[in-house]
């Protein structure tokens, strides 16, 4: 654990904090159908055009049921759209650019898994981009969902926040207006600038065919020159939204570890910032909308505490390295370099791993599977908490608010009033929906993992044996149900069983969670807002942060302790105290 690491961590958190307010203020404008932004002169006409095409009246809103139906149908239709593109990619444009290199067959189950994966903002990839996807599949079939699913997440968070802020309201917003405005005002403009920056760092953005290069070192006696085939394509435009929208689906198999996809430490730093940019801004949006900026910052601080804590543990574990390597005479100056890139080193790998799993991003710049046990446990735990540490765009905030509701319900009574959150009484219905959201995640992860680990199809995909193999399965379903998409990537999941069960876990983790949350929004919106007084439950300040973090750790993390004990924890003790290998 080096000084430069601490400085980079401070720099990261500091810049993130500075960006939170401007991003939050901008979101306040965008997420209000009547809001005005500096982009209006350019974008307003496009916005109006979109409404006309869609037939949406931006002056109207939906109740929670209408909102949920719109969201579900849009997800369904766009999912089918992508499934069709993937299955038909050989007939669609640009297939030829990579022809001959697309060695992975696009089977129905792979297409289903991938379509679901991108629709649910998971971006789990049972395939390697460079040898599976045509440019058209990447740019239209997949990248579109990077926008759609991100906008959907933000829209739902906004609906929930509005619901909290409103007083006895029937409606929680207009899904179509939210969808259009988020895409037009936030995602597309930011991505244009961001993608150009990424290109400046060395990321590719072209439509050229895959390029064969005669490499520098040629064996003297062969007639066939040694070549290296370089992947080409519209990468920057896709990577920009993949990070900003916390989607995480890599253009290439190696994802953000690939030198094209993350060329420099600077591009790495900006990519990490872009993951947290919107989720962090949303906490400010929350504070501003509910008129308690301190609450917004308290939520931010809770996230920051969990983020810094997990990152530090992971970094520490990776810095210590692998004792088995040390025994072989390897000096691990930085730490465990297996599966990590030299330009990022230990700290930036550990930091990225935590950011990508705190958020529902899932892009990776190092291979989590090769982390030390405790180093790998932290990303897994981040996901299992529900990706609420900043979290996916929108998804992080609404997930965190579910925890806030549960926290207030458990501890709120202690101030001598029935629980109330920002003046909204938390009653049976709200507890029911919040509990449901938490139940779904835990159950999807644990039940699918249990199924896989006693099934032949489950164990067949393993790349590692012993506790680490268990970790691979646990991570896979955590990632799927949590809509993260990162992996202990040794696990081969491109089989019908894995593809299908993973797709189900992703669907459960996304939609079975979102629907109760929209219902919660509907319930909260309809409630009277009780004025705040000295007797109200304080939702800001150190006590609240401690309470929220404590609840998340006890109610969220401890649930997974038995499973983690059989995976990373026991592996840690085996690695440090024995020479046993698997």
């Amino acid at each position, binding site marked *: 654990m080096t000084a430069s690491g601490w400085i980079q961590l401070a720099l990261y958190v500091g810049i993130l904090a500075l960006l939170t307010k401007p991003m939050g203020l901008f979101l306040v404008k965008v997420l209000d159908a009547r809001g005005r932004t500096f982009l209006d002169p350019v974008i307003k006409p496009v916005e109006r055009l979109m409404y006309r095409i*869609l037939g949406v009246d931006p002056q109207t809103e939906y109740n929670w049921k*209408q909102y949920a139906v719109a969201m579900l149908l849009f997800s369904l239709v766009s999912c089918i759209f992508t499934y069709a593109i993937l299955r038909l990619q050989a007939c669609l444009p640009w297939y030829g650019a990579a022809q001959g290199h697309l060695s992975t067959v696009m089977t129905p189950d792979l297409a289903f898994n991938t379509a679901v994966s991108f629709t649910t903002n998971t971006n789990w990839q049972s395939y390697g981009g460079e040898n599976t996807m045509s440019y058209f599949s990447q740019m239209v079939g997949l990248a579109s969902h990077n926008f759609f699913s991100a906008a959907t997440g933000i829209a739902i968070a906004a609906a929930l926040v509005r619901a909290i802020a409103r007083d006895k309201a029937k409606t929680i917003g207009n899904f179509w207006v939210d969808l259009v405005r988020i895409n037009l005002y936030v995602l597309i403009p930011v991505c244009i600038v961001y993608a150009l920056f990424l290109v400046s760092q060395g990321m590719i953005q072209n439509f050229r065919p895959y390029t064969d290069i005669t490499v520098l070192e040629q064996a003297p006696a062969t007639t066939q020159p040694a070549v290296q085939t370089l992947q080409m394509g519209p990468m920057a435009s896709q990577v920009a939204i993949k990070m900003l929208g916390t989607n995480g689906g890599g253009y290439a198999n190696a994802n953000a570890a690939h030198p094209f996809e993350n*060329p420099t430490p600077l591009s790495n730093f900006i990519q990490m910032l872009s993951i947290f940019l919107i989720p962090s801004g949303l906490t400010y949006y929350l504070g501003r909308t509910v008129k308690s900026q301190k609450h917004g910052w308290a939520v931010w601080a809770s996230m920051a505490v969990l983020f810094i804590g997990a990152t530090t543990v992971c970094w520490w574990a990776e810095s210590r390295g*692998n004792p088995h390597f040390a025994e072989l005479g390897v000096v691990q100056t930085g730490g465990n370099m297996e599966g990590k890139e030299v330009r990022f080193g230990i700290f930036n790998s550990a930091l990225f791993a935590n950011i990508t799993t705190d958020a529902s991003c899932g892009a990776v710049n190092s291979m989590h*599977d*090769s982390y030390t046990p405790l180093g790998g446990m932290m990303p897994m735990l981040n996901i299992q908490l529900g990706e609420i540490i900043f979290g996916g765009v929108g998804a992080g905030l609404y997930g965190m608010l579910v925890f806030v509701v549960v926290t207030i319900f458990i501890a709120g009574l202690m101030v001598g009033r029935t629980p109330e959150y920002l003046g909204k009484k938390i009653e049976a219905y709200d507890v029911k929906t919040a509990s449901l959201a938490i139940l779904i995640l835990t159950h999807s992860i644990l039940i699918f993992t249990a199924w896989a680990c006693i099934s032949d199809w489950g164990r067949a995909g393993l790349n590692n044996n012993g506790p680490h193999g268990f970790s691979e399965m646990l991570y896979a379903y955590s990632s799927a149900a949590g809509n993260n998409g990162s992996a202990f990537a040794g696990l081969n999941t491109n089989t019908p069983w894995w593809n299908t069960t993973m797709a189900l876990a992703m669907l459960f983790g996304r939609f079975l969670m979102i629907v109760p949350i929209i219902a919660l929004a509907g319930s909260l919106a309809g409630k009277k807002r009780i004025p705040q007084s000295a007797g109200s439950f304080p939702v800001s300040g150190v006590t609240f942060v401690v309470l929220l973090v404590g609840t998340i750790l006890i109610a969220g993390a401890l649930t997974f302790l038995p499973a983690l004990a059989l995976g990373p924890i026991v592996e840690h003790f085996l690695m440090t105290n024995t020479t046993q290998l698997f």
Partner: protein
Amino acid sequence: MSKIQEQRAKQHTEVALAQASDGIIRHFWMSIVATIALAVLVSGVYPLIVWGLAQMIFPNQANGSLLKDKDGKIVGSALIGQRFTDPRFFHPRPSAAGSGYDPMASGGTNLGPTSDKLINGIHKKMPDGKDDPSSFDGVKDLVAAYRRENGLDAVTRIPADAVTRSASGLDPHISVANALLQVPRIARARNMSQEQLRTLIDRYTQGPDLGILGEAGVNVLDINLALEDMKQ
């Protein structure tokens, strides 16, 4: 924030708009239209704008940061590592991408820290005496090979990056310590002074970005190109 802005912010209250009567059928239709209309924007207009600007402003990067030798022949991408086994070159890290540095199969080993395969490797021969495709060099083998290639004794400690595989399998860099350990071998093979090589390493070490971000490393393709240039 100015006073006026603050006041305006306070006035911003959450008030609901009128409720629309849109039902399921209507939402289904809107979903289809929205998918297509938005796809045109985010998968058509947007990537093309980026493409146009990128090709205009950063054509080199946008097309893969390709490097040419002095004859103008493309020899690789500055960002993508290549395989070097000849003693006259700096050697990159071991790679798990295909048979090594194959951009068509980027990735790492994905072996866990207690994997027997990762530490000890798998050594199987096929009946005809060739290596079985499942054969795999463990870190133990890589350490031995590195010592052998560079003529190091058994007590010399090997930098971690020299015997571990990167995440992408295409890592263009090696650590400075790794590069320095290779100096005697290259000097011997090329008849150069070790001092010359160390100076070269110094020159081709890419420090942390902005002086703080990331780690220092030596770009293997860059420095090997430089070696080839010096030959003539």
